[in-house]
């Protein structure tokens, strides 16, 4: 029997980036806010102090910062004809857990999507005609525009202290920035990071081919920074333990380094950790959420009533909680009807290794978003006529740090072990780098999320089932990007290169990217989207669903900048409209 607790104004489910932003916004608006986090409290000096933060085995290969699959996982398959089996070990993506979520171990690559990304369906139809979109490609417009999100991108970038160079200030193209980006009202809060040799060589080669290289927008600080909340971050030390690691130096923006020092001290905010929400409870009409049920570490269950419910977990958990709570109509890939679980997407990556004889590259120096890129082949920045695909991605060298268990490249033809392999590793480690491509995944009728019929979690609830594969569109696009990357790599004048295309079906084993999207997508029509353009549930208006689960498809950029912007966009609508007159905002 669940113990019923005193009601609160708003409850936040999951305490990472979006939960922390919403708690900060709503406590500012005077609400009593309670955050429920399934994991533990986590902070810099305790959990990733600089005296031991640089530990490749513990943090990456033994998953100290990631979700424990023994507690919760999902089942996976490439298509509806297969039987889904559990993801038993982490591989392809690395969901977070504990306070700060995956925002603790992210890289800090902080993008704005292109204006055309938000109108992907109508834009591509208009430019290329109906034949450009395959029948089973289910891409949609977002229902929100770049111009509407611009001030909210700006807020997130200034919260984080993003280091970068504007490419388009109020319509005027800026030398040294990304000329393809949408217009921004002001510069980044911090200048770009200093560059090591590999990104510098990439930029020179790209420029020689007529491209416009620019520095990666980075949540790693290029200098000391005090954000608008008065929280201070320190300059990045380029230690090379950023991606898949936590920063011991307060140099990477996260909930811990930008919001929590202010939020945690507010009298109208409470955080309960080791408190896992297992269901959102509706009233008898099914139109109003009245409470959430959660379980503490001992297995005791509580019911927490709240007027406003904010679902701010990782996208996979957002979608699963909607499904197990019976909120919204589950998506059916046969009829195309239903919305919860629809349009799950991912990203597609590839790389080109570059080997020199005559250059010392010191690849262990790095930061999560320290690199030079080109955006000529992203989104619809190039003419897709006759190419057989839509979408694109960025290409560049982002030197995150060559930690040796993970990164010890050898040329084609090298044995996999033994003395010859050892010699090749020793010869090439300091003299090699890698050009990466990072591409979009368009949504597709049979790429979706639903509940698994067989497997259960520790509470006996069904696991979520992921059905996903790359389609011809993604493979053609990624091959195209990889060819362009190889061309730039050759222009870097190395001894040799090694091209690593993404071949075949999506494989859960090798790490690719933690950019899972969709499943509770936003839009303007309740028949084709789970939430409206303010991230408000169409079915249950006092429930809002945040994060990349709202993306109708996944553009060719890292998601967190847009996740932050959408959160501030929804927060503004809640503060200025919903709290005055609770009810549907669209």
């Amino acid at each position, binding site marked *: 029997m669940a113990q019923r607790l005193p009601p609160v104004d708003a409850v936040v489910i999951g305490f990472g980036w979006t939960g922390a932003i919403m708690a900060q916004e709503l406590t500012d608006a005077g609400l009593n806010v309670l955050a429920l986090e399934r994991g533990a409290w986590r902070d810099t000096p*305790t959990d990733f102090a600089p005296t031991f933060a640089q530990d490749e*085995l513990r943090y990456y290969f033994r998953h100290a*910062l990631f979700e424990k699959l023994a507690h919760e996982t999902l089942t996976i398959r490439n298509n509806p004809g297969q039987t889904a089996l559990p993801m038993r070990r982490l591989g392809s993506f690395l969901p977070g857990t504990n306070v700060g979520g995956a925002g603790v171990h992210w890289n800090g690559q902080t993008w704005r999507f292109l204006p055309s990304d938000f109108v992907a369906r109508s834009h591509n139809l208009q430019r290329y005609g109906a034949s450009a979109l395959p029948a089973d490609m289910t891409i949609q417009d977002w229902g929100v525009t770049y111009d509407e999100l611009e001030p909210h991108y700006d807020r997130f970038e200034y919260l984080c202290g993003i280091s970068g160079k504007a490419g388009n200030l109020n319509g005027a193209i800026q030398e040294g920035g990304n000329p393809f980006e949408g217009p921004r009202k002001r510069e980044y809060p911090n200048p770009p990071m200093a560059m090591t040799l590999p990104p510098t060589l990439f930029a020179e080669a790209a420029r020689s081919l007529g491209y416009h290289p620019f520095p990666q927008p980075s949540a790693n600080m290029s200098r000391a920074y005090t954000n608008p909340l008065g929280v201070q971050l320190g300059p990045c030390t380029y230690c090379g333990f950023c991606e898949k690691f936590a920063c011991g130096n307060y140099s990477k923006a996260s909930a811990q380094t930008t919001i929590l020092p202010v939020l945690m001290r507010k009298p109208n905010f409470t955080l309960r950790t080791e408190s896992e929400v297992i269901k959102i409870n509706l009233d008898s009409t099914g139109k109003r959420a009245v409470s959430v049920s959660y379980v503490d570490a001992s297995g005791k269950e509580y019911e927490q009533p709240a007027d406003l419910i904010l679902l701010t977990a990782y996208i996979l958990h957002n979608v699963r909680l909607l499904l197990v709570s019976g909120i919204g109509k589950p998506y059916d890939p046969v009829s195309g009807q239903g919305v919860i679980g629809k349009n799950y997407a991912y990203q597609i990556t590839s790389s080109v290794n570059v080997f020199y004889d005559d250059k010392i590259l010191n690849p262990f*120096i790095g930061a999560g978003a320290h690199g030079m890129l080109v955006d000529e082949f992203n989104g619809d920045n190039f003419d897709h006529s006759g190419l057989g695909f839509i979408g694109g991605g960025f290409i560049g060298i982002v030197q995150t740090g060559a930690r*040796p268990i993970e990164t010890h490249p050898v040329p084609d033809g090298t044995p996999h072990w033994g003395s010859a392999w050892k010699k090749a590793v020793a010869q090439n480690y300091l003299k090699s780098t890698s050009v990466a491509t990072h591409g979009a995944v368009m949504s597709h009728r049979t790429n979706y999320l639903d509940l698994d019929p067989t497997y259960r979690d520790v509470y006996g609830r069904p696991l979520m089932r992921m059905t996903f594969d790359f389609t011809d569109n993604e493979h053609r696009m990624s091959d195209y990007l990889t060819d362009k990357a190889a061309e730039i790599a050759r222009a870097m004048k190395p001894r040799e290169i090694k091209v690593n295309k993404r071949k075949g079906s999506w494989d859960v084993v090798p790490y690719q990217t933690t950019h899972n999207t969709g499943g509770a997508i936003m839009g303007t029509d309740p028949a084709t989207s789970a939430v409206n353009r303010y991230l408000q549930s169409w079915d249950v208006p006092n429930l809002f669903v945040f994060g990349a689960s709202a993306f109708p498809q996944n553009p060719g950029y890292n998601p967190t900048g847009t996740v932050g912007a959408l959160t501030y966009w929804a927060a503004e609508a809640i503060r200025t409209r919903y709290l005055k007159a609770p009810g549907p905002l669209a």
Partner: protein
Amino acid sequence: MKPTDPESRGPALTRRRLLTAGVIVPVTGAAAARVIQGDMPWQESEAAAPPAATHGPAQSGYLFFAAAEGVFVEAAVARLIPKDDLGAGALEAGVPTFIDRQLAGDYGRGQDWYMQGPWGEGEPTQGYQTRLTPASLYRIAIREIDDAVNKEGRAGTFAKLGADDQDRWLKQLEEGKAQLATADAKSFFQMLMQNTLEGFWADPIYGGNKDMVGWKLIGFPGARYDHSPFVTKHNQRYPLPPVAISGRPEWSKG
């Protein structure tokens, strides 16, 4: 070591919290959750540093491996990363000790993995699907490889084979061509290779990478905290020797 597990941090912290005003607010009945209100619940001297690999018994030095298993792993890793004119290999780096300590701990038990049935083989793209923990896979595979070697008639065990024959066997395991009684040869090889790389290049605190030989071989400076002075020193050799989490040998008194 699970510093972020609720079980390992909860109770001790709660007791300490009661001594610090304003941070922990007990909620009736919510004993196994942690309530944080009014401040950042940060405490000095609480850092969750990694524990060093423990010493094994004097006789074998191993915590997990039986004698024959230790001999097999020593022989195998010495072929995967051999001692040669470039210096120490996996054996000299202490990789067998590293793997032994890993298998004796959470990793060996597959503690973080989803291990509930039903079990199915699945497609290669669905990843690891056997019910064997890493510790069990090592135990079974080593026994079955030695049995198969014995049956072949050139030597009683893998460790007693000559280097060329050991390489031939490792290659057959790698390619999945070795027929073992029950264990999946390819899966075992992949795990052994991955664990060998880990033991060669992980921080020495875990029992391998002795004297940072893995890092010295390639020029990786280890657990250094600040590279900012060297970011723009292009095409120059990094001047500092590697550092481990526990420092450098000359930094300790003895």
